C-alpha cells in the first residue's frame, strides 16, 4: 500500500497524538496541533484514534494513490479534490488506485488532517509516529514531506463499508473573533490587575509568527508586576506565555519541554480544535473559565467521540 508524493505542500508532516513520556528527557510531545480533527478523521476511516495521519498546513500536498484506499479529510478546508472532483470534508471516501488527491486555496482554518484506512506506516520512535522537525525525530525520516517521497500504509483489516453513513457536518466555523477559554495560572500572580484585565479584555491578533511550536499574538500590553522571567519550568499544551514584550505566545505541539517565561493562563483542551486552526490575522479573545468547567468540557468532547466511533461501527 503506497502513496506517492507528487507535490509536498508548504508543511505536510506525519503525526499521531504525540510522543508522551519523554518530556523529562527534553523531548517535546509533538503530534497533531488539532488532535480532535485528527481523531475524527481516523474514526471516519475506521482507524484507532492514535493512527498516524498527514497534517497539511495552509497549502496542501498533491498525492497519488497506488492502491485503493478509504480516506477522510477534516479540520481546515483547503479545497481538496480527487481527480479534480471536490471532496467533501468529514466524509469517508473511496479512492481508487491511480487517483490524485490535490489541495487548493484555503477556505478556512490552517491545518487539514488526511487519514487513510490502516494509517500511515512509519517506524515508531519513542512510541510515537509523530514528526518532531527541530531534532529530526519520527514521522517520515524526521522531516516534512518532499516531492518524490513514497509513504506506506499499514494494512488494516477490511476497508469500512457504507461510506455514505460515515459522515459528519464539518464543525469548524470561521468566526469574526474566536473565543478561547482559559484556566488562569500557574504564574497569574506575577501580573498586575491591569495586566490581567488587558489579557482577558482585549482582542488579540495572530501575528505572522505561528508554527507548530507556538502562536505569537499582537494586542494590548500585558503588564507584569515585577520580573517577567521565572526559573524554567514545564510548559503545557495551550500555555499562554508572556515575555517582557507583554505580547502573549500560545504554546503548541512542538513547544520546548521547559521555558523561563511567565505563563498567565492555559487554553483549555476543549478549545484546542480552535487553537490548532488559528492563522495569521485571525482575531481572538480569551475568556476565563474554571478548572472544573474546563475538565467537564473536555470529558464531554471525549464522550461524544466515543459515541461517534460506536455509532459508526454498529
Amino acid at each position: 500500500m503506497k502513496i506517492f508524493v507528487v507535490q509536498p505542500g508548504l508543511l505536510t508532516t506525519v503525526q499521531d497524538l504525540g510522543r508522551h513520556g519523554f518530556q523529562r528527557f527534553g523531548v517535546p510531545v509533538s503530534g497533531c496541533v488539532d488532535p480532535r480533527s485528527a481523531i475524527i478523521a481516523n474514526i471516519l476511516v475506521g482507524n484507532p484514534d492514535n493512527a498516524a495521519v498527514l497534517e497539511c498546513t495552509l497549502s496542501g500536498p498533491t498525492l497519488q494513490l497506488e492502491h485503493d484506499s478509504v480516506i477522510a479529510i477534516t479540520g481546515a478546508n483547503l479545497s481538496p479534490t480527487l481527480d479534480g472532483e471536490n471532496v467533501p470534508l468529514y466524509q469517508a471516501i473511496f479512492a481508487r488506485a491511480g487517483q490524485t488527491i490535490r489541495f487548493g486555496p484555503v477556505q478556512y482554518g490552517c491545518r487539514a488532517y488526511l487519514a487513510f484506512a490502516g494509517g500511515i506506516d512509519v517506524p515508531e520512535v519513542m512510541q510515537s509516529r509523530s514528526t518532531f522537525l527541530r531534532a529530526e525525530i519520527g514521522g517520515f525520516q524526521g522531516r516534512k514531506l518532499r516531492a518524490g517521497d513514497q509513504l506506506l500504509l499499514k494494512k488494516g483489516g477490511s476497508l469500512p463499508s457504507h461510506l455514505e453513513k460515515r459522515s459528519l457536518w464539518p464543525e469548524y466555523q470561521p468566526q469574526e473573533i474566536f473565543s478561547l477559554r482559559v484556566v488562569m495560572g500557574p504564574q497569574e500572580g506575577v501580573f498586575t490587575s491591569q495586566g490581567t484585565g488587558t489579557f482577558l479584555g482585549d482582542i488579540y491578533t495572530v501575528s505572522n509568527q505561528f508554527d507548530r511550536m507556538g502562536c505569537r499574538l499582537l494586542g494590548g500590553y500585558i503588564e507584569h508586576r515585577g520580573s517577567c522571567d521565572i526559573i524554567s519550568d514545564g510548559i503545557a499544551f495551550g500555555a499562554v506565555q508572556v515575555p517582557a514584550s507583554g505580547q502573549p505566545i500560545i504554546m503548541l505541539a512542538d513547544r520546548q519541554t521547559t521555558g523561563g517565561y511567565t505563563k498567565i493562563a492555559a487554553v483549555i483542551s476543549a478549545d484546542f480544535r480552535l487553537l490548532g486552526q488559528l492563522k495569521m490575522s485571525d482575531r481572538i479573545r480569551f475568556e476565563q473559565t474554571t478548572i472544573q468547567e474546563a475538565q467537564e468540557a473536555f470529558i464531554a468532547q471525549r464522550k461524544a467521540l466515543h459515541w461517534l466511533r460506536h455509532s459508526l461501527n454498529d
Partner: protein
Amino acid sequence: MEFEIKCAGDSAAVVIFGDKISPEINQKVCLFQAALERDPIEGVTETVPAYCSLMVCYNPEIILWEEMYRRLSYVGTGLISGGFSPGRLWEIPVWYGGEAGPDLSAVAQFHGLSPEEVIQIHTSRDYLVYMLGFLPGFPYLGGMDQRIAAPRLDTPRVSIPAGSVGIAGAQTGVYPIASPGGWRLIGRTPIRFYDPERSQPFLAQAGDHIRFYEIDRRTFLKMEEQTNHLLCQRCGEQEAL
C-alpha cells in the same frame, strides 16, 4: 516537605518546591518524582522535572483536578528531604581543546589562565543535572566554578557537532545532537547523551551527577569508533554521593 500545587491548564498540575536554583530544592523535585514512580497515581501520563518544580501531566477522563490535588498533597507530606540522593554518577571522557574545543584558549585568556588550568578546573567537580531540556537529552548542569565562566559567542555557530562540551555564562553543558548554538566550546565527548537507536535513548536524567575527565585525541577517535552500546558500558553507572 513544603510545596505548592497549581493548575497548569486542565491536564497538568505543577508542584512547586521553591523559587531558586539550588541542589536542595532540585533534590525535592527528584524525590517527589521518584515517589510518584514508586506509587503511581492512576491517570498520570508523565512528569516533567525542572529546576524547582515538577509538572504532572494527567488525563482528566481518569482523574479530576480536586482528586489530583488531594493525591499530590498526600504524596508530598510523606516525603522527607535531605541525605539520600536518588541520582547516578556518569563519568564522561572529554577531548579538550584542538578542533574539538576551538574556544578553550579564548576561555583561558578571558581569565588569565592556561588551557590546562581551565581543563583542571572543569574536571575537578561533579555537576548536578538539574533537568533536561532545550534539545532532547540536553542536560542543564549546575555548580560550575566561576573561575572559568565565559560569555556566549556574539554570533552563534550555525552547527555545533554532537558531543560538544561548552560553557555559557556560569553554566556548562553537552550538546546531545548537532545544533546551532552560541556556547563557547572547550571540548567534545564521544559519549552520546541522546541516541534514538539505543534501547535507552537517553543517558543522564534529572538528579544525576556528571564528572568530566580528560582523554586525548587518539582515545577519543578510538572510543568514537566503538558502538554506543560499548560506550555506555565504559561510561558505567555508580551511586552518587
